[in-house]
């Protein structure tokens, strides 16, 4: 009878493989999406090689373009982190869109407080970011409380809260009577410009890359640390993978759900706030930030909910978006093709069985249910 354990050398290789395995599916999904995307490009009468070269050139072709890509990725990074945190607690926060908008609204309002204009930037800017945190936190917290107290599913409640947030934003920004946030002197409706003291500094001269990216990177690291190294993080992860075991272990499941929805909303809110005070305009227009929250769900999926993987996933997203215009010009193609490629990536990640089948990637081993699996692992010695 053969030994149930592979020899040590092979075992190490296997372990290394399984450690990398979470990465293989997204990478192959991107490849596959590009391939299928090229079919669309061919169908549209374009040359995929030219198109992808232009896309790459537009995203990374010069230092300025790289800076633009990173700037583009910043709000996605923070917002996707919000969604990823929800995933870890087993929550599907569709509401990042609305939470981000609430954060942006509070920031656009607080940023115009007159006394802030005279305050030092070191105080003023963080204060506005905190206001964004509060806005998003409240919006996320509503869904959390509804879920914990009444069992209302967060997918339903956050979709509705998104609609409310969109309507609220449109009203607050465009209403002239009463004039709420609107800049009465502007020809097209937008909010009043925030004070200079609250603006986030630009990191690369001549670009739109602001300090928000540093905040985004720090937040990704911080969330990862909290999840992996702290007791609240342990509670969040346990609630996420096995709420029954969490309850058995004395964790307060409902409280964790509320807290995570609040934290998730807070992150989305700060993403919106940072964009308002870091973006080039310094004000909020109706319809601004549309789809950032929804795209962030896709990015969080691409990152498989891992806070550190959110960074490259968001950068990829930013690159695709910021390279698209050049592709449009050079390959004479619609920007929509980039959206198609993005959608394909997510499609292939969501339907990872296709990718696993095509590239023969083995599924992660799950707890022993069936006889063969139990055999393969059960024999201790």
């Amino acid at each position: 009878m053969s030994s149930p354990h592979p020899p040590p050398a092979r075992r190490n290789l296997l372990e290394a493989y399984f450690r990398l395995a979470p990465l293989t599916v997204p990478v192959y999904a991107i490849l596959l999406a590009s391939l299928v995307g090229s079919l669309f490009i061919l169908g549209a009468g374009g040359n995929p090689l030219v198109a992808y070269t232009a896309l790459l050139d537009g995203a990374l072709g010069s230092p300025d373009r790289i800076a633009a890509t990173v700037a583009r990725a910043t709000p996605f990074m923070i917002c996707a982190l919000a969604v990823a945190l929800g995933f870890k607690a087993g929550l599907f926060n569709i509401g990042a869109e609305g939470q981000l908008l609430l954060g942006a609204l509070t920031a656009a309002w607080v940023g115009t407080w007159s006394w802030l204009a005279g305050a030092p930037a070191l105080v003023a800017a963080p204060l506005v970011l905190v206001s964004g945190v509060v806005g998003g936190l409240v919006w996320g917290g509503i869904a959390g409380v509804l879920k914990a107290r009444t069992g209302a599913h967060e997918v339903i409640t956050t979709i509705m809260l998104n609609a409310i947030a969109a309507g609220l934003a449109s009203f607050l920004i465009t209403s002239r009577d009463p004039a709420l946030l609107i800049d009465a002197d502007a020809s097209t409706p937008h909010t009043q410009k925030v004070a200079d003291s609250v603006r986030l500094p630009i990191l690369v001269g001549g670009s739109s890359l602001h300090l928000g990216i540093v905040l985004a990177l720090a937040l990704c690291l911080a969330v990862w640390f909290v999840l992996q190294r702290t007791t609240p993080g342990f509670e969040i992860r346990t609630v996420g993978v096995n709420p029954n075991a969490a309850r058995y272990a004395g964790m307060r499941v409902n409280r964790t759900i509320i807290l995570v929805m609040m934290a998730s909303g807070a992150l989305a809110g700060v993403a919106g706030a940072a964009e308002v005070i870091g973006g080039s305009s310094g004000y909020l227009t109706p319809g601004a930030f549309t789809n950032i929250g929804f795209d962030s769900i896709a990015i969080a999926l691409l990152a498989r909910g891992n806070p550190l993987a959110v960074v490259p996933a968001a950068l990829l997203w930013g690159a695709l978006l910021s390279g698209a215009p050049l592709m449009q010009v050079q390959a004479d193609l619609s920007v929509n093709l980039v959206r198609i490629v993005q959608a394909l990536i997510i499609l292939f990640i969501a339907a990872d069985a296709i990718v696993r089948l095509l590239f023969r990637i083995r599924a992660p081993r799950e707890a022993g249910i069936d006889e063969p699996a139990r055999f393969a692992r059960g024999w201790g010695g």
Partner: protein
Amino acid sequence: MQTESSTDHDVSPASRTPVLRVTGLTKRFPGVVANSDVDLELHRGEILCLLGENGAGKSTLMNVVYGLYQPDEGAVEVAGRPVAFGSSADAIASGIGMVHQHFQLIPVMTVAENVILGMERRRGPFLDIDHARRELRELSSRYGLDVDPDAVVGELSVGAQQRVELVKALFRDADILILDEPTAVLTPQEVVEFFGVVRGLAKAGKSVIFITHKLREVLAVADTVVIMRTGKVVASMPAAGATEQSLATMMVGREVGFEVTKDLAEPGDVVLSVRDLQVTDDRGHATVRGLTLAVRAGEIFGIAGVEGNGQRELVEALAGMRTPVAGTIEILGRETTRWSPREVEMLGVGHVPEDRGKHGLVASYPITDNLILNRYHRRGFSRRLLMDRAAMTRNALDLIERFDVRTSSPQIAAGTLSGGNQQKIVMARELSSDLHLLLIAQPTRGLDVGSIEFIHRQVIERRDAGVAVLLVSAELDEILSLADRIGVLYRGTLTAVMDRAEATRESIGLRMAGGGGDT
């Protein structure tokens, strides 16, 4: 029960051509040989017990015979003709029927509807269920299976549902019946009844393969015993003349001590006191209905009973996971009726839950994390909010050693270990802190003999150290060998409480079925 072994049916296999013959069967899974060169013969009218521990390869073998797996080597013959089943449908067509441990019935449908499922006959555009009902009546009277075709399956007792499964197989003209651990869900009385049915089937010319790991059952019902160990058949012999001890030695591969050796209990003060407790299940049905009991330090109080009589809700209420509707729970003199699981745990209560996959473990977490699943907040494993990984690893290495968890590393996901090793992790975690009370539910379900021995020893050690132990088990043998006092749980109340010395298998079995309440 041993005396009523196979003496009362004298079926001599009518034909010498076996109805089922397996020769040289080998089935491999990645990294392991599940069945290695297995031979097996089943004759007409024979009851064959397939005996072996969990993971010995019994189920794999039967799944090959039933067409669910394809063998790598070897051959299967039915009535002398070689067969190669592509699926269980092929096996059924060849007259093989299987009753799985977990019934494959649809509770909201009637017996007749369940039986015809997948082979519905039509009359015009309509379902011809009358034909099935007639045939069912005929089958149940011929084989003495009491089944009402029009009863809704969900309203039947477990024993009756099992008869429906049998009828289902017979309806499909099965000549060979494979029964996978059929007695696991039955009361002792139902088991006796069930054995009668099985003997009747054999007398009528059906051949039965009876998968079990219970030695008593082998001696009670089998004509032939086939013992498997680590994928091989280690013995194949007539049941007559076998003893529990000889069977166990062959099954495990070494001498096994049956009698758990323990000293007389020296009970101290009452640690757990429950009065008139009422608890409801998830659907709001009252399942614990006015239960009163007391457990003293240094004694094991065993709760016997068929599953579903309120065991789960009782233990969950005691552990703080379920809020009682009425009544009181006192632990160490403090009323804990409405306490949270954390508060109860901090009082020095260990809880080994009945469902380790659902409550006791997080399958995807490494052993290290599972060993602190409910202790992570304690000083020693975390400082303020920071988890102390080094301390967790030290704790894991220590407990893995002390509780003999077989693993190559503490970083391995708990879900990838065998059931016995998973249970040892739960036990290690729950027993390793300062305990006053241990709540322990179905501690050895699905485990092999070696792990069972180990876990029983651990429980007794705790008792001797002065811990009050409440043991809930559906295995009567486990209750009888561990408990100092025994209470029988029937429909949410304790119908009898007795000292171990007064208890007999029969008296408890009767009360488990709701009888014998006059004493």
